[in-house]
C-alpha cells in the first residue's frame, strides 16, 4: 500500500490502528484518509487495509 506517498508492505489483515502503531502515531492526534475518504475514528480498530489502498495520514502537534 502507499502511505503518505511511500510504498509500504505489511503482513496481512492490518487495521488502521495497527498501521498507526507501526508508524508510532497516536490515534487521537491524527486524521486518516483512505483513497480520498476520511476514515471515521470509530472504524480505526475494525477497518482492514487493502494492499491497493492509498493512505494519507496527517498528524497534529500541540500549540496555538
Amino acid at each position, binding site marked *: 500500500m502507499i502511505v503518505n506517498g511511500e510504498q509500504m508492505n505489511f503482513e496481512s489483515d492490518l487495521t488502521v490502528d495497527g498501521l498507526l502503531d507501526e508508524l508510532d502515531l*497516536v490515534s*487521537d*492526534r*491524527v*486524521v486518516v*484518509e483512505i483513497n*480520498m475518504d*476520511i476514515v*471515521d*475514528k470509530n472504524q480505526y480498530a475494525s477497518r482492514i487495509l487493502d494492499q491497493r489502498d492509498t493512505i*494519507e495520514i*496527517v*498528524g*497534529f*502537534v*500541540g*500549540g*496555538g
Partner: protein
Amino acid sequence: MHIKVNEKGVSVADKSTLYEVREQHMANADVVIYNGFQTTADKDLKEADEIVLIKKGEIPDKSVIETLMMARHTPGVFKKLKSSVVGIAGVGGLGSNVAVALARSGVGTLVIADFDIVEPSNLNRQAYFIEHLGYSKVEALKKLLLQINPFVKVVSHQVRITADNALDVFESVDVLVEAFDQAESKAELVNTALTSMPDKHIVAGSGMAGYFSSNDIVTKQKFKKLYVVGDETNEAKVGSGLMAPRVNVAAGHQSNMVLRILLGQLTP
C-alpha cells in the same frame, strides 16, 4: 467618463487627471489612493477608476469610513470578503491573531468560539490587552475587533468545541480555521469538520512553538479540503514555549490561506 471617488460614482470630463479630481473633491487631501495603491504622482484617469481621498487627522463620516479603511485593498477584493463568513475555533495565540487580520481585511462575518478566559500568560502572544484580563476570550476579542473594524459582524460562542457541537456552531461558515492548543482537540475538530461539513475548507495549525526559523513554517494542502500551517514538528512542551513571532507567522499563513480560498485561489 465615470469613476468612483470615496465610493461615490461621479462623472468627470474625459482626460481628467487624478490631481484635478482631488482639487474638485477634497483639495486638502494628503493621502491619495488610486486603484488600491497610494500614490504621490498625478495620473491620467480612465473609465471605472477608483480613487480614495483622505485628510489625515480628520474623523470621516461613518458612511464613508469603511471605504476609506479598505482603500489599500486590491480592487474587487473587498466585496467578496464583505459577504464572506469565517469560523475560528479557538481564539488563543493563533485564533485571536487570525481574527484581527481577517477583521482588518474586511471579512464580513466572523464566528468565534472559545471556552476560556483571558489570563496573564496569554499576553505574550495573543491579541489581548491588560484590560481584557478576566473577561472571556470571545467577549474580549469581539470588543477588540469592533475597535479595529466596526463593520465586521462578530458572532461569539463561549463554549468548548467538541465533535458534538462543532456542526451547530460552524454550519454557516464558508471557511473554518482550526486554532486550538491541544493536538487531540485539533485532530478531533478536523476529523469532525471533514466528515460532517465535507464542503468546507479547513485551515489548521500544527507546529509553531519556540524560536526556530520562521522559514520552516509553511502552508500545505494535505487533503482536498484540508490545509495545515506550521512546521509540523515543534510542539509546545516542557522546555519549548509558544512565543509571539512564530505564532504570528503561523496566524499570518492561516489568515492569508483563508483569504485565498475566499477569493478562489485554492493552491497553498
